[in-house]
């Protein structure tokens, strides 16, 4: 395989995996539910997007003919990720999680000293 193509595939694979990890770090570190919601909806969509681009480039130059079906996964995730995030946020608001501040403030006090 041509070196440039291989470089491009490697770049997109590592970038995609890095964004997926960053989204998970977000869900791991952030103190309250609504902030955690930002992790998967953003970084993970670009993470899987990067992976899909890498796979599309790889199979286009490796298999027979152009490969485009990875785009479908990206498209599907770009449509569904905001919907599931909206549902989770709505459920959390119905349960009154947005009024629940003390955990957040305790953490702030802890890291200030």
């Amino acid at each position, binding site marked *: 395989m041509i070196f440039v193509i291989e470089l491009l595939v490697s770049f997109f694979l590592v970038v995609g995996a890095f*964004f997926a990890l960053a989204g998970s770090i977000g869900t791991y570190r*952030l103190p309250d539910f609504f902030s955690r*919601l930002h992790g998967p909806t*953003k970084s993970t969509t670009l993470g899987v997007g990067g992976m899909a681009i890498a796979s599309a480039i790889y199979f286009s130059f490796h298999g027979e003919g152009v490969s485009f*079906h990875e785009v479908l996964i990206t498209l599907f995730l770009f449509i569904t*990720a905001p919907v599931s995030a909206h549902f989770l946020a709505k459920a*959390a*608001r119905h349960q009154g999680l947005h009024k629940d501040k003390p955990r957040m403030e305790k953490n702030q006090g802890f*890291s200030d000293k």
Partner: protein
Amino acid sequence: MPEYRKSLFLKNRWLPHPLMTLVLVIIWLFLVNTITFGHLLLGTLLGIAIPWFTNRFWPERPKIAKPFLLFRFFFITFVTDVIVANITVVRLFLLPDISRLRPRFIEIPLDTQDPMVITILASVISLTPGTVSSEVSEDRQTLIVHGLDVADEKTAVQTIKTRYEAPLKEIFSC
């Protein structure tokens, strides 16, 4: 005569959603990953059959007034904003001291009551810098958005309204 039946008669009966037919054919070709005459035929068959059977779920067609603006919005504004969003949010996640974040809810007054425009606006907001749309009020007047790091509520609302809502309103002409 019920409302949806009346709208059925007003439309083309055999090809109720031409745009959806086109999109379904393209999706089918992507899914099988080859472009041959047989698959084009099968895709066209599915593209005609699926809108016909699911017709009463979408009683009206979306009115796209400016298709060129739609392409510019999604392929330039939206794509760059998604990439910027990810880099911004990742930088916030990796801050050594996360208590510096200022998460809060902001309320965005909506200028349009069209359900589809609100849906697209909410999805675009969820995918772009540091904001997740979390609720639409019952009367479709305000959209409640959670921001991860909001410095000033007024400028945030203003940015969203001018950058996303105004082009969407222009595209769908409402």
